[in-house]
């Protein structure tokens, strides 16, 4: 697949906050830049947007972390810098993002969430093959996040997106790949679910945690839970999505139980049979990777590992508390 390559992303030159010799993004993918505050994520986006340094591209459409609306109406702000064709697109995006009816109002009357949604509409409407979004979902509540994420994913179809966040849910909702950035450097890069589930080292694990992300589709709502079709399994997770909604289910490695005995008769709704494919003792906890059709990572203590007496090839049962798993809707067909 074709890719866009950025080289020598280093800024400031003398005492760099960002120092990345090379960053490649495949055309059409959405790359998440994930990291703690102060990691240099925003500086990286500014470099790529050619606001700082050299090596970026001024043709990227860039949403700053705190987008600013100028004096005037929302419509005037929405159309700022857009040609006529893009303005039609912006109107449609504003409508889908729930700010279409605010366009005649003065921009300064908008709430922070509305400001962000209007700014996202403008950024996505720009006819640019590269879109840079800095914390696009941060000021939104969870329900709004899902709607906005869905619009972003749709609007980025066929385009390349680089999205900064320090939130795992946002990463799961918006990303194809995830780059973990700490102290101005990228420590790990790979598919979102892979990086969240299998951090390359303790430093990365400390930042991202160990999370499982599984893709599925809601079959039905069951009270506070949704029943999700996950391959041949049924997975129960917190959520209120309607049947047919594509979702990702997130649950931490610490929420995963590993059992060698039989779980029949247990009240646990999420229990799956699987085979241990890997056991890693990286720190205070051991990571056990179990193939349940797709990989699930469990975090258990070394003591439990001894008690269970499992190793690669062991047949086990895996349990996940439904209330410890959370479904988030994803775009592209929702």
């Amino acid at each position: 697949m074709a890719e866009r390559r950025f080289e020598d992303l280093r800024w400031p030159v003398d005492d760099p906050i960002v120092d990345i010799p090379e960053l490649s993004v495949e055309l059409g993918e959405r790359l998440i830049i994930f990291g703690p505050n102060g990691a240099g994520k925003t500086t990286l986006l500014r470099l790529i947007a050619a606001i700082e340094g050299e090596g970026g591209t001024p043709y990227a459409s860039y949403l700053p972390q705190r987008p600013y609306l100028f004096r005037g109406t929302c419509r005037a702000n929405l159309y700022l810098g857009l040609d006529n064709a893009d303005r039609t697109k912006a109107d449609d995006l504003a409508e889908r993002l729930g700010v279409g009816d605010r366009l005649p109002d003065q921009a300064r009357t908008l709430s922070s969430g509305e400001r962000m949604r209007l700014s996202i509409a403008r950024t996505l409407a720009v006819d640019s093959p590269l879109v840079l979004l800095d914390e696009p979902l941060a000021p939104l509540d969870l329900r709004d996040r899902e709607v906005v994420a869905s619009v972003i994913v749709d609007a980025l179809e066929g385009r390349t997106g680089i999205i900064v966040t320090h939130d795992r849910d946002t990463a799961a909702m918006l990303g194809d790949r995830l780059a973990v950035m700490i102290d101005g450097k990228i420590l790990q890069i790979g598919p979102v679910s892979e990086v969240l589930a299998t951090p390359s080292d303790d430093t990365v694990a400390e930042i991202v945690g160990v999370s499982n992300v599984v893709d599925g589709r809601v079959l039905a709502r069951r009270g506070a839970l949704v029943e999700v079709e996950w391959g041949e399994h049924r997975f129960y997770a917190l959520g209120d999505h309607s049947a047919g909604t594509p979702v990702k289910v997130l649950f931490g490695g610490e929420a995963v139980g590993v059992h060698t005995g039989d779980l029949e008769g247990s009240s646990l709704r999420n229990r799956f049979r699987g085979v241990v494919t890997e056991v890693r003792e990286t720190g205070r906890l051991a990571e056990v990777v179990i193939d349940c059709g797709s990989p699930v990572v469990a975090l258990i203590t070394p003591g439990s590992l001894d008690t269970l007496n499992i190793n690669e090839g062991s047949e086990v049962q895996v349990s996940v508390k439904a209330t410890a798993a959370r479904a988030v809707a994803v775009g592209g067909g929702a």
Partner: protein
Amino acid sequence: MEFLGDVIEDAFAFLGNSGGQLAEVLLLTLIVAGVATAIGVAIGVPFGIWLGLGRFRGRAFLWTLVNVGMAIPPVLVGLLVLLLLWSDGPLGSLGILFTPAAMVIVQVALATPIAAGVTAGAVASLSPDAREQLDALHLAPVRRGRVVAREIWPGVTAAVAAAFGRVVSEVGAVLIVGGNILGETRVLTTAIVQETRQARFGAALALGFVLLVIAFTVNGTLTWLQFRERGIG
């Protein structure tokens, strides 16, 4: 007290009797100050926006020059323009010394730094978020300037008011390059000087009152514009 009473009485008498002569001086004052302000603002405001937003080497030095220009004594500017326009000077061939054109030139030189300095100061007060957004939008320079001008609209109107105030109240420079020739280059301020020198205090006071009315009208209009919501569009 009797003296002041006589002066005020004379002032009213002057306003009642001066007729065409006052109108002529008033008209020239408005034309010279108006044209000079317009040109000074047309140059100074965009320059101030550029200076306020810019990130380039030498910006601090340029800003210092603007501040010096705001504080430079008008008589010195008048002298420099006089030397340029003197018959043996570099621009002597234009033959515009002691004409309204020379007065406009000298007042443009006074108005431009004021317009630039006040505008640059207003731009400097833009929030970092606004600046980041401007950078993110990658607008063409003219469009970018228009967005900024409207964002700092109260600052722009303040720049116009300050520039107009500087030129309409100025006397030294226009006296030097205009010569205070009755019917040709006499404006309100130079007329006040003339009347005062000849101890016609009533006439001087009346002219001062007219100047005050102009200042009040112009600044009142600008203040009204300042409070109007001007947005991008």
